[in-house]
């Protein structure tokens, strides 16, 4: 079915254990090569592991796509201060639903990845910051940590290597902004989750002002496989600059929504085929490649390779590969309004462009959807977006304008149609 050079359409790596009974237990995990990568890693040096992850080309799976090995290499080689590894498990970007199933189905893969990554970065305390609403994940992670302790994979002198590590699971309390890595660190320190000015970057001054690396769940869960299979194996999937498999979360108006782990660079056309096509045959209208903060795509973009470069070249971003699919029945201005209300609610309030911008953007969109908008509102929206994009403290503001600017770019007529009945009033006001 597949040639040696081209991987299969679905390449289960992270998801391959999910079908096994009680896949979350250490027994199942160990039967399926679990903790073999840890044994191998502990025989090498931290430098070798950083080199391996660099060679693999693994890029951050939390949205930004920063090369993980490079991020790790920013950690200082000395241990003048404690080093921390912090896992960002605050999954909340609208459409994103990959880390929660991963932590439920295979928590040990994350724990094993945490131990290897902590060893590579000379950290002896790792925190997993899990979204509070993901209670079942928190439960499974805690159980996995207990099991790993009992098996000697955590605690002091792990597998007689002389390496010590504790992992603490920390429940968040309902704030999207805590998915931003510096806001997450403030939250983990017991403060309001508001982003910090960078530099200093977390590797210089992160948690408790000590060297810290923040990585996404899927990134770290990929590490044991890279340790076992090697960088060249990892690169047999995906593209030159975006190697590896990736969990594409397909939701919305498709026949079979779900989690499909495929090589990076898979297109929506291919994903739709896997997901059984559009639900009830109603045609596609718009979709997001990686969550609501990534500018929307349309039917024009069915063949865009969904890797970091491909999505960017087509005017969007890969984000979290949260593919939300909407059919022709959905109003774009309404969808954009709903997303904007989300950003308004989740704006942390620290910086003016985002706090005020999202407030006014939501208000204007609500007015338009209620049929009280005018053509001038479209210009006002774009003008506000222009004052939020790139002028906010963190990426929340940038994400907030994505649905609006892309929605108007591709579906301006739909925004205009909402204003049609007010056209007379608008013209009259200027005559």
């Amino acid at each position, binding site marked *: 079915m*597949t040639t040696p050079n081209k991987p*299969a359409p*679905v*390449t*289960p790596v992270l998801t*391959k254990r999910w*079908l096994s009974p*009680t*896949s*979350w237990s250490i027994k199942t995990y160990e039967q399926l090569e679990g903790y073999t990568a840890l044994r*191998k890693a502990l025989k090498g*040096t931290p430098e*070798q*592991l950083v*080199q391996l992850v660099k060679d693999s080309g693994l890029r951050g799976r939390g949205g930004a796509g920063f090369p993980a090995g490079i991020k790790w290499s920013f950690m200082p080689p000395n241990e003048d201060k404690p080093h921390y590894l912090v896992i960002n498990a605050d999954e909340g970007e*609208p459409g994103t*639903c990959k880390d*929660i*199933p991963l932590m*439920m*189905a295979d928590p040990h893969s994350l724990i094993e990845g945490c131990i290897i990554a902590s060893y590579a970065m000379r950290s002896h305390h790792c925190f997993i910051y899990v979204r*509070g*609403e993901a*209670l079942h994940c928190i*439960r499974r992670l*805690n*159980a996995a940590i207990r099991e790993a302790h009992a098996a000697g994979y955590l605690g002091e002198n792990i597998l007689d290597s002389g390496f010590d590590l504790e992992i603490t699971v920390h*429940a*968040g*309390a*309902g*704030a*999207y902004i805590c998915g931003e890595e510096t806001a997450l660190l403030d939250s983990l*320190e*017991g*403060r*309001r*989750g508001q982003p910090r000015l960078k530099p200093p970057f977390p590797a210089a001054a992160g948690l408790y002002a000590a060297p810290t690396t923040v990585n996404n769940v899927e990134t770290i869960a990929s590490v044991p496989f890279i*340790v*076992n*299979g*090697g960088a060249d*194996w990892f690169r047999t*999937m995906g593209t030159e600059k975006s190697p590896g498999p990736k969990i594409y979360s397909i*939701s*919305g*108006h498709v026949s079979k*929504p*779900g*989690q499909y*782990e495929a090589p990076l660079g898979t297109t929506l056309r291919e994903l739709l085929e896997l*997901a059984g096509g559009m639900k009830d045959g109603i045609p596609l209208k718009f979709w997001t490649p990686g969550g*609501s903060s990534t500018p929307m795509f349309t039917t024009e973009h069915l063949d865009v390779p969904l890797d970091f470069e491909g999505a960017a070249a087509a005017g969007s971003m890969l984000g979290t590969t*949260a593919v*939300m699919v909407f059919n022709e029945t*959905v109003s774009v201005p309404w*969808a954009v309004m*709903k*997303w904007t209300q*989300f950003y308004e609610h989740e704006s942390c309030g620290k910086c003016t462009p985002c706090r005020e911008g999202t407030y006014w953007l939501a208000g204007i969109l609500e007015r338009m959807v209620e049929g009280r908008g005018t053509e001038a509102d479209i210009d006002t929206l774009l003008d506000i977006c222009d004052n939020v994009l790139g002028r906010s403290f963190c990426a929340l503001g940038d994400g907030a304008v994505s649905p609006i600017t892309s929605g108007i770019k591709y579906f301006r007529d739909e925004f205009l149609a909402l204003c049609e009945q007010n056209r007379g009033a608008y013209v009259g006001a200027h005559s």
Partner: protein
Amino acid sequence: MGDTDVTGVAPVPAEHLVTDVAEDLSVFDADIVEKAGQIIARYPQSRSALLPMLHLVQSVEGRVSQAGIQFCARQLSLTPAEVSAVATFYTMYKRKTCGEHLVSVCTNTLCAVLGGDDIYRTLGEHLGEDGKRLGHNETAGEPGAPGSITLEHAECLAACDLGPVIQVNYEYFDNQTPESAVALVDALRKGERPAPTRGAPLRDFRTAELELAGFWPEDEESYRSTVDGPSAAVETLRGAALAEANSWTAPPMPNAPLPAEEPRAGSSMSGGEKK
């Protein structure tokens, strides 16, 4: 120039500006004090214990009260203002006492398209009284009493492939309809505990908050029953099942050696495991 004397210029006497009422903290008994200490012990710096401690406070009172704020402040040597600032920032900390159950309906765009808005509206009407719809963060029944339900609309609950989703006490009820949601809250009001699609057997909001603070059932059997609660939704497993049905796999993994350290640019050094 010194700081402005805000009490000196205030239009009301200073004693009216600062309400330093010492709350009765007796509701937080020795067991809770002990648990607060255990939370603090998890962290290199005590202030990190604040978020879990606020969850602990909610497990006692079903909300974060002024007493709860003062309790956390005392445990962590913070001011009540510092604790308040944090407690009011996060959506999951409730200022009004929550019902026995917290029902959260995702109304973010994707769930809303699939029916989440209808579900939220229907539940509001169904749980309301005297023709008045139950609003966001409002409770049907005497808050905390058996069968009482607090309703809220939630932001994306990260279960988009299973939308529209509802959570009860943060356990997932997937693929809902207005009808199934009404049946769910009716069962809750009757004191039943319907099984979540994904999650532990249903308990109540306060128990969920205790778990969020990091405290789990002590006897092994109850503990395992919560951990082993279902998670394998059809949607979650779809990609893996499709691959299995078609014999699709990732390329086989060789047992590759770890790379040599820091190859110099331009060198042709390839592998070689360190001894």
